[in-house]
């Protein structure tokens, strides 16, 4: 690189920029600003995280003993885990990832907003009514058929709540699709000059891959749910074997969507993780192209593996192809894991809270991944299908995977969103409690499942009581850990240290503006650095110094500046 690129075009260095003040009321009303929408997404998602978490705590409380005690009937227990699953998937992880995407994608592209701001806001505002519907469904005859809603249990044997829940998921699906269309158009058409596909930040790559999955997979769920709702309210019998229907049709259509959907839930997190690991290890992402391509590969292969969820119900001859594809998908996932290890290898690792969650993800996700490969082997899957082994696996990849990356993302981007740092000491407590609580909640489930405890049961054999007690107590620790983070967010929003524009000295474009960014994101058109992860590059130091000069440095910055004096930002 012969010449140094500066973050803002023209070099109009008209003094330190001033961050805008945000008021709570800005977030409570309709807004087409992608940053406000992003925060709205995140706030709503966090609220539903608490709701889903409360349900999880009730489930674990119930499971302290082998028989019913907290709830009155098995149906109530089934409602707890059904709504827990639906809330956590559709109202916590997916909207949270969408929130990060909304906030970060335009910033990382140096754009003023998404391609369709109004559509963006509309997609968000579908979520609160859907959430109300879903919670309301618990009050009018429980949805008791799990998040998978297999008929005929859901169609013939469940109450009206099932219909409401299906409607709610329908709305959320529409919201997802609209959001995804927006992401694809934004990422494809709104990249700035100087940012080719191979300069695209990995979070944008991951969001793109996710959005492609959403556009092509979610309509399967929409179609299936339409038929399910017709079965429930219009007297049709698409899934009723007694009337010429086929319950297995639902399983196929549902998993056409829902297997790709697990990548919807993990890919954006993997993108965030790439950002976090590179920034806090001060090293370029190892094998950037492979990480980007593997996201696309996962998206593609993800469409061909759905029937491994049906290894005990599908016709035996049809199972084997899906074992092969399910095994294959481990390869791009493995590439990612090793690339991340290569990223921290030889770095200058700073153990910030964000980094701790990133490293925690690596160590936990690999457990889920190994379990996943084991589950792909049909003979073993037959034994542990629908047992706590699966519960463990899915929580390792959804909690140890998605939620850990969300936490890492929160610690990493909170300074950008609010202009203040999260408290690192509380952050480390949060990490320690989460890591320990998480591991001892979900790892023992492997043993329970292999030894013979099915999932989704309110009653279990007394021999499993000890392991369930360990799980429940750890789950309570995990529950408490969440409140450490919420307290941290609450207290840091007002009293956190001033972050400055670029506390982590990161190279992607969202840091080349004030924290929080102004309404138009950038004052002039920003110029991206030629490599979003060019840490260790001499030019990158000059680029980062220029950001510090233009926007000032926060108090007590976590990443020391080699050249720059800490200049307190004005306020």
């Amino acid at each position, binding site marked *: 690189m012969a010449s140094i690129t500066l973050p803002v075009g023209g070099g109009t260095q008209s003094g330190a920029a001033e961050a805008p003040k945000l008021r709570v009321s800005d977030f409570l009303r309709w807004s087409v600003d992608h940053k406000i929408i992003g925060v709205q997404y995140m706030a709503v998602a966090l609220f539903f995280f608490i709701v889903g978490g409360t349900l999880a705590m009730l489930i674990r409380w119930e499971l302290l003993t082998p*028989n019913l005690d907290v709830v*009155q*009937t*098995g*149906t109530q227990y*089934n409602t707890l885990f059904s709504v827990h699953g639906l809330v956590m998937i559709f109202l916590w992880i997916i909207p949270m990832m969408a929130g990060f995407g909304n906030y970060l994608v335009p910033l990382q592209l140096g754009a003023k907003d998404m391609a369709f701001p109004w559509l963006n806001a509309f997609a968000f505002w579908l979520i609160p009514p859907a959430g109300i519907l879903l919670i309301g469904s618990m009050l009018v005859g429980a949805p008791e058929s799990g998040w998978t809603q*297999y008929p*005929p*249990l859901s169609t*013939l*044997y469940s109450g009206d709540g099932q219909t409401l829940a299906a409607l709610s998921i329908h709305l959320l699906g529409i919201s997802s699709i609209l959001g995804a269309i927006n992401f694809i158009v934004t990422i494809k058409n709104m990249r700035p000059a100087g940012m080719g596909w191979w300069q695209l930040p990995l979070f944008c790559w991951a969001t793109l891959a996710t959005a492609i999955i959403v556009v092509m997979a979610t309509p399967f769920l929409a179609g299936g749910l339409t038929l399910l709702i017709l079965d429930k309210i219009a007297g049709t019998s698409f899934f009723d*074997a*007694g009337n010429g229907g086929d*319950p*297995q049709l639902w399983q196929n259509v549902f998993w056409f969507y829902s297997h790709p959907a697990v990548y919807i839930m993990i890919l954006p997190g993997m993108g965030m993780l790439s950002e976090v690991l590179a920034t806090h*290890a001060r090293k*370029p992402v*190892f*094998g950037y192209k*492979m990480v980007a391509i593997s996201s696309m590969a996962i998206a593609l292969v993800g469409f061909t593996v759905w029937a491994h969820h049906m290894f*005990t*119900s599908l016709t035996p001859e049809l199972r084997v192809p899906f*074992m092969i594809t399910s095994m*294959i998908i481990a*390869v791009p996932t493995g590439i990612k894991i*090793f690339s991340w*290890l*290569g990223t*921290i*290898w*030889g770095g*200058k*690792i700073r153990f910030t809270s964000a980094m701790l969650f990133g*490293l925690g993800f*690596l*160590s936990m996700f*690999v457990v889920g991944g*190994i379990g996943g*490969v*084991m589950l*792909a*082997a*049909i*003979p073993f899957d037959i*034994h542990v*299908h*629908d*047992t706590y082994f699966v519960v463990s696996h899915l929580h390792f990849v959804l909690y140890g995977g998605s939620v850990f990356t969300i936490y890492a993302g929160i610690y990493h981007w909170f300074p950008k969103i609010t202009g203040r740092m999260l408290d690192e000491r509380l952050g480390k407590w949060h990490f320690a409690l989460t890591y320990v609580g998480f591991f001892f909640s979900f790892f023992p489930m*492997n*043993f329970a499942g292999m*030894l013979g405890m*099915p999932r*989704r049961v309110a*009653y279990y*054999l007394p021999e499993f009581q000890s392991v369930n007690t360990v799980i429940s107590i750890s789950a309570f620790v995990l529950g408490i850990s969440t409140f450490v983070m919420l307290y941290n967010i609450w207290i840091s929003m007002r009293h956190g240290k001033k972050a400055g524009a670029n506390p982590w000295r990161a190279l992607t474009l969202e840091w080349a503006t004030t924290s929080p960014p102004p309404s138009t994101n950038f004052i002039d058109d920003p110029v991206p650095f030629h490599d979003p992860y060019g*840490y*260790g*590059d001499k030019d*990158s130091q000059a680029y980062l110094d220029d950001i510090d000069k233009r926007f000032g440095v926060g108090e007590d910055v976590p990443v020391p500046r*080699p050249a720059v004096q800490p200049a307190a930002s004005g306020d």
Partner: protein
Amino acid sequence: MASTTPSKPSSGGLQTTTIIAVVVVGILLIVGGIILGQATPLLFPQQASAEAAQVDNLFHIMLVIGGAIFLLVQGLLVFSMWRFRARKGETGDGEPIHGNTTLEIVWTAIPAVIVFVLTILSWQVFNSLQAPKPGEASVVVAGARFNWAFTYNVPLSILGYEVDETLLPPDVKDDLADDGTVSITSATLYSYVNQPVALAMDARDVIHAFWVPAFRVKQDLIPGRTTTVRFTPTVADTYPSGIQCAELCGANHGIMRADIVVAENEAEYNKLLTPILESRLFPPADPVVRGRAILESNVYPCYTCHVLSDLSSANWVGNVGPALDGVADRAATSRANATSQTAAEYLYTSIHEPGAYLVPGYGNLMPQLGVPECDVWAMVAYLATQSTSGSAPFEVVQPDVCIPQVSGPPGSEPPPAGEATAEAAAETEVVPAEATAEATAEGS
């Protein structure tokens, strides 16, 4: 681990020290994986079928490989965290290494080879699990919320004495096949060592899954299609709650269990089936006794949804359907109010076509259980005695075909009704009395 050191890309080929380090670490990982693999037997329940041995073997291999990968990743992670931590006051960045093509190819290829091998191994095991075995015994399984029923075709010859076929109850005579077998149904799965079994399974209402942890076999029961599961038990034992429903089927999914009894040999097995066959061939003359015996045998899932405090069996959990205490009084009233049938016909219809009359407040949740005609009438006779007054408020006339012509096997007393199966049922009791009491209180 040193092989992944990307910090010396310029050094060209592998140095001797690097090769030694890779080999040492590789051996350590394999040893570590093998040590972890030793845990396999601890992780599984008793290994009681031919299939279980194969599955455990496969898992053992996967655990060794998975354990080695686990150790590799965690080892690299912890080592990097220690070796590459930023020291106090350090301000620089790491080295700008963007990748290493050789390394990336290696870590794409190795997982690919591993999953390829695992796929082949799994495929072989799976084929062997699915393959029909010679001399399979065939048992018909019905899953209904929330119980299992197993139907066997048994030759009359296992009784060990001659039976006068002309004296058998009419429905048994109809059922008697040309090869001298008759079907009997039990709530317990019986088998014997080294006898391959193929279960043909039907779901009566929702999707269930037949799972025997000790046998490592599982197969969903899907309404509208008959599915098959195969296994060969290898250990003679009684497996209380050995069968567990593994697919969410509703409120009492967790207690949709059944026992398995694996006998030493065929003779023992026949001995186990004899009392069930005798109770079919020589039903009690009194329909009330007979109906009670049927209900207590747990062959039909009535007890999983209804409460009936008259029956000693404590597993009448009953929080899904209406309580049956005092059902005779209600039948009398309902008949007067709602239908043009007699009370007995009303009860008969309620069992035979559950959707015909619904008790207010309850949905159409009860499946058609396919109960034989005479069993229904016997149950009706028994239920007619369930009144507050203690005696039947109406009379139940048994159809002629259901009146047995003899009252027991020749030369012996008739077996006490449902003794064998009631014993088996007693072992399945996992719901403590208070749960039932609670449900009873709620239901009434």
